[in-house]
């Protein structure tokens, strides 16, 4: 079903997390300037490293599976690429982002030869390694972003990038770097692909509300999904004329979304429960709540508790603050733990409650009535 992990003694919120290739190590930031790396030993997780280079809060971490490099970005306007030596120590290289506001999100491209950093400077830095000078340089995508870039995701073809922003728009760009890669061919999003070319722009709502929290390209790269602060889930399909399909939900806003098959996506956020939705034709349909935790009533002691509560807090009811869910606070990020975007078996979520929960979709599908993942 689901497995809950906590790391260390602190119950600090987990800002973001990333797994290594075989999922035996995890990098996360406990809501400060540090990045902690834990390794699985038997059933325990032991801290092996503490990456301290940033001055301010770390906003994004991404771990390239094949080249085993970590990239981190932070409010201090810097990004670092970390490589592991033979002795297990991580060494760092500064990336020249050339931004004057906080860096907010970072993602390696699928081929791991470049990465993108979104920032409060209303631009996206596409960073790649320059061999001649032995450092990471960046090129900027600027237009027409009007506000902080909150979330980015790469197309599987290693060229296109989708970015969600606080100006209520989702945009698809070409992030082709001619210095390091071959000329890309045309695709469903567009034919001319110079760096920074905007191939699509989607407003989050016709009324102009709800900044975008998270974006995700589908596994085949034809669809983009995003969630916004108006509690909506949106999908745009390039093969269907790039029309926006919008579902306004009755829940609190979602902070993360991820495709788990080519048609199903998982969303999670302020309601503390991951939900599954399905894109079918021109509709987004609710499939299931993935967390059906019921709080157990504390049986025999309830009378005593009642009087204690009356005595101590002058309250008649014994209401406490525990929620009917595994996560006890907003979920801020979703990562695939096992499988791929086209066929996810397990995914992990972290949130402000400092917990990491691994959700097993296969066993959830067997145990939850009406849950069919297509």
């Amino acid at each position, binding site marked *: 079903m689901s497995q809950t992990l906590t790391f260390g003694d602190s119950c600090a919120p987990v800002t973001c997390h990333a797994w290594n290739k075989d999922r035996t190590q995890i990098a996360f930031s406990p809501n400060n300037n540090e990045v902690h790396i834990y390794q699985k030993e038997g059933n325990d997780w032991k801290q092996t490293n503490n990456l301290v280079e940033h001055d*301010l809060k770390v906003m994004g971490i991404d771990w390239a599976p094949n080249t085993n490099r970590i990239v981190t970005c932070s409010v201090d306007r810097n990004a670092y690429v970390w490589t592991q030596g033979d002795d297990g120590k991580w060494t760092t290289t500064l990336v020249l982002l050339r931004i004057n506001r906080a860096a907010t999100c970072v993602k390696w491209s699928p081929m791991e030869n470049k990465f993108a950093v979104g920032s409060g400077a*209303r631009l996206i830095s596409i960073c790649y390694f320059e061999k001649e000078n032995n450092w990471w340089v960046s090129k900027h995508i*600027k*237009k*027409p972003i*009007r*506000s902080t870039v909150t979330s980015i995701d790469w197309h599987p073809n290693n060229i296109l990038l989708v970015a969600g922003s606080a*100006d*209520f728009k989702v945009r698809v760009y070409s992030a082709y770097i001619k210095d390091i890669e071959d000329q890309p061919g045309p695709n469903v999003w567009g034919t001319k692909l110079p760096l920074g070319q905007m191939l699509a722009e989607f*407003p989050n*709502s016709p*009324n*102009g*509300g*709800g*900044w975008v929290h998270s974006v995700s390209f589908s596994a085949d790269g034809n669809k983009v999904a995003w969630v*916004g*602060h*108006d*509690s909506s889930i949106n999908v745009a399909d390039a093969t269907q004329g790039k029309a926006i399909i919008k579902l*306004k*939900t*009755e*829940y*609190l*806003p979602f902070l993360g979304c991820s495709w788990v098959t080519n048609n199903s996506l998982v969303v999670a956020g302020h*309601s503390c429960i991951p939900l599954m939705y399905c894109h079918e034709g021109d509709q987004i349909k609710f499939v299931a709540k993935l967390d059906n935790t019921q709080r157990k009533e504390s049986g025999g002691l309830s009378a005593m508790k009642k009087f204690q509560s009356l005595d101590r807090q002058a309250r008649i009811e014994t209401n406490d603050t525990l929620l009917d869910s595994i996560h006890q606070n907003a979920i801020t990020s979703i990562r695939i733990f096992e499988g791929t975007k086209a066929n996810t078996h397990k995914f992990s979520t972290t949130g402000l409650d400092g917990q990491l929960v691994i959700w097993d979709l296969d066993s959830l599908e067997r145990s939850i009535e009406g849950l069919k993942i297509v």
Partner: protein
Amino acid sequence: MAKNTSSSAFRKIDIDQYNEDNFKEDEAEQSIPTGPDEGEVCALLNQGRYIDALKVVLNNAPVGSANQQIKDNALALTLKVLLAIKSTQIEEAVGNLCLDDIDILMKYIYRGFECPTEGSSGHLLLWHEKAFNIGGSGSIVRVLSDRMKV
């Protein structure tokens, strides 16, 4: 973390004003909405067709209008409809609305709380309860996050 300084005046300087590509609200492209037709709504109310009147005011809400006067008139008219519907009929009325209308209804309920009249808030709270049962927290969040106010 940033050092504490005794002065916080610098925080009030609008440094973004010197950027040429500042965020601007999208101009409303559609024709300027004029709001619901008062005569039509009053006629429906007089005939006792409260639910139809409610639909008319919600469907014609001038959300895209920049003119505060039009919005205030529409608000007054909507509140008139909301307060005319008896508390026993609220559930039926809300049940007849589509989800987009529930969102607009929620916006008017909150606007109604802003400028209360005798007995209005209690009645609006009943509306709020019934609208919340259908729209959930999502419709309240959309009242807060939507740029187009009623």
